[in-house]
């Protein structure tokens, strides 16, 4: 954890009737924090499958790793859309390990939604990742055509606090 810096309150206003060292100290920012925003975007063409089947695509974290890092990441939404007004699926899963992901041994199922043209899962408070777990989205379009192209957008934030 970073050490908060200290500073000297400049000698201005001392002697004025309305001067207060406490107020002057409180109005000077000593900590800044921010969250880095990331978006995952996919545009994939896949063979069409019957209802009851879907595809899963895993999230890749910075560095090319497939398991969540120690710094938590907050997922806020999964939005799947297609160019046609066909039935679309959006889902979000958590797996304990890569081996569990490969056999679809779900640890936590965050939801599945369907929609025509687009389907969106949205979490106001975000889903916080746990280190070492694999996170994957469910994607699919159901129509009579042999192939489909689906677009997915997912917004997430990394916790980062900067002192200074």
């Amino acid at each position, binding site marked *: 954890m970073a050490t908060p810096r200290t500073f000297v309150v400049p000698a201005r206003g001392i002697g004025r009737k309305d001067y207060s060292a406490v107020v002057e100290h409180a109005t000077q920012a000593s900590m800044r924090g921010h969250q*880095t*925003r*990331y*978006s*995952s*975007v*996919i*545009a*994939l*063409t*896949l*063979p069409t*499958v019957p209802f*009851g*089947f*879907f*595809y*899963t*695509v895993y999230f*890749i*974290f*910075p560095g*090319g790793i497939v398991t969540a890092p120690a710094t938590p990441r907050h997922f806020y939404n999964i939005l799947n859309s297609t160019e046609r007004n066909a039935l679309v699926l959006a889902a979000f899963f958590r797996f304990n390990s890569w081996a569990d*992901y*490969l*056999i*679809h041994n*779900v640890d936590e*199922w965050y939801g*599945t939604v369907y929609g025509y043209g687009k389907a969106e899962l949205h979490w106001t408070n975000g889903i916080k990742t746990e280190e070492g777990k694999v996170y994957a989205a*469910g*994607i699919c379009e159901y129509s009579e055509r042999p192939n489909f*192209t689906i677009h997915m957008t997912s917004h997430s934030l990394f916790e980062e606090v900067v002192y200074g």
Partner: protein
Amino acid sequence: MAKGRKKIKPEKKFKPKGKVIKKVKAKGKMITITGDGEIIEETENPEVLLVEITKEK
């Protein structure tokens, strides 16, 4: 256990069961970008899993 006290059972988690049918090579791209628009990860033709839902509840 005191007389008359009921044992509280843990809630059953709702987990749909699925079976991976096969791995499929998708045509297209997976991109991770920062809020500034900087591309930090890009994968072409990623491998996705085809899953069949075997149990709804």
